[in-house]
């Protein structure tokens, strides 16, 4: 078999296992004697280090392992620190708007409005520091009341919650009328 092919096999083995693999095991897998395998491995080591590669092949007491080069450290820190873009999903936005306008409100009341379980959304909003516990309702089970945080107000440049755009009564009446008309329409058919 061509040397190149054996090198590819060794690379695949070390990549998959991730850990240090003894020379004997490698030799057995690629079907070559220890001497030859070792020579191939050392050739590979040279090539990994000389080329502009991000990974290197190191030897640890007769075992071999692939790992990143020390010079890559900065880049790796950077990638793990680059925030995944956090966005508020539609579900979170919906829940946030309900809490903003109906606060203080319990999880159950939110669920009554949305028609679906809302634990996850509320917890995420708390985690993002947009929503917080503001007390407990004086009712059986003493459920937690949620409201928006100062952070939330600051972001929108609001002094107080009263500065939130109002949901006027007129609008509500309109909605009601629309719904009624729709039903009437259905009944007429």
């Amino acid at each position, binding site marked *: 078999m061509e040397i190149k092919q054996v090198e590819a096999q060794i690379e695949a083995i070390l990549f998959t296992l991730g850990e240090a693999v003894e020379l004997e095991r490698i030799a057995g897998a690629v079907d070559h004697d220890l001497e030859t395998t070792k020579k191939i491995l050392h050739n590979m080591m040279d090539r990994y280090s000389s080329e502009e590669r991000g990974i290197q092949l190191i030897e640890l007491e007769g075992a071999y392992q692939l790992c990143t080069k020390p010079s890559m450290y900065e880049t790796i820190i950077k990638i793990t620190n680059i925030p995944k873009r956090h966005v*508020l999903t539609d579900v979170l936005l919906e829940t946030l708007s309900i809490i903003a*306008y109906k606060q203080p409100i319990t999880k159950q009341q939110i669920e009554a*409005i949305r028609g679906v379980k809302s634990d996850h959304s509320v917890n995420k909003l708390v985690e993002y520091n*947009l929503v917080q516990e503001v007390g407990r309702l004086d009712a059986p089970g003493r459920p937690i009341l949620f409201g928006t945080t100062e952070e939330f107000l600051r*972001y*929108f440049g609001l002094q107080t919650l009263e500065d939130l*755009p109002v949901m006027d009564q007129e609008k*509500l009446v309109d909605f*009601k009328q629309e*719904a009624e008309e729709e039903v009437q329409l259905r009944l007429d058919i």
Partner: protein
Amino acid sequence: MSIPVKLEVFEGPLDLLLHLIEKNKVNIYDIPIVEITEQYLDYIKEMESKDLEIMSGFLVMAATLLNIKSRMLLPQEETEEEEVVDPRQELVDRLLEYKMFKYISEELKDKQWDASKVLYKPPTIPPEISDYKEEVKVEDLLSDLTLSKLHHIFNSVVKKQMDKIDPIRSKFGKIEKEEINLSEKFLQIQEYGIAHRKFSFRNLLESQHSRMEVIVTFLSVLELIKIGRIRIEQECLFDDIHITYLADDIIQMEEVGF
């Protein structure tokens, strides 16, 4: 039509139908509905499935076939413009779609085999790096959210909720259970009778708070008449009824077997 001794296992009603069509070597577009229906029913008979849910799926398909069969036996109504739709068309469409997905899943099966030979490496991130927990900044999170957008979202939530409410039914009053105690009312009227001796039936009813109370009061009055504890007088039809309480004591309801 003979049934093979060992029945094959079918995924569902469509699967069985496809099998029958293929076995009869006929075009899917030209299903001999009568034959296929009979064979289909034979299979179901042999299945003896205990699972109601599975069985019902097959039965629905059998019913569909029978329905098509009967529609095909009936003379086609002649219409001037409308194209005559083959009753089998819907079934054909479903079958073709199902067949398509069977074909695709076979393709996926092959791909799965090739892909299983590719191996991945678990992450090897140094702990000091992986332990770092990024902070989520509110500014980033809300970057494209404005107050008016938030307001708009809330409006649509409210609207959605309104749509869900049936305005007609929601106007129906609530049905509340009223606790009216008949024996108590029976005693109350007698107490009232001792105190007033003569009183108006209309006033008595009007002082009741609910329909249920009125009914119970009326029943009590009837009973008191029956056992001779009160006397009633009415001068003209539809006039008020004057009640005179005759007894000097009060009787428990249980004593009269009311």
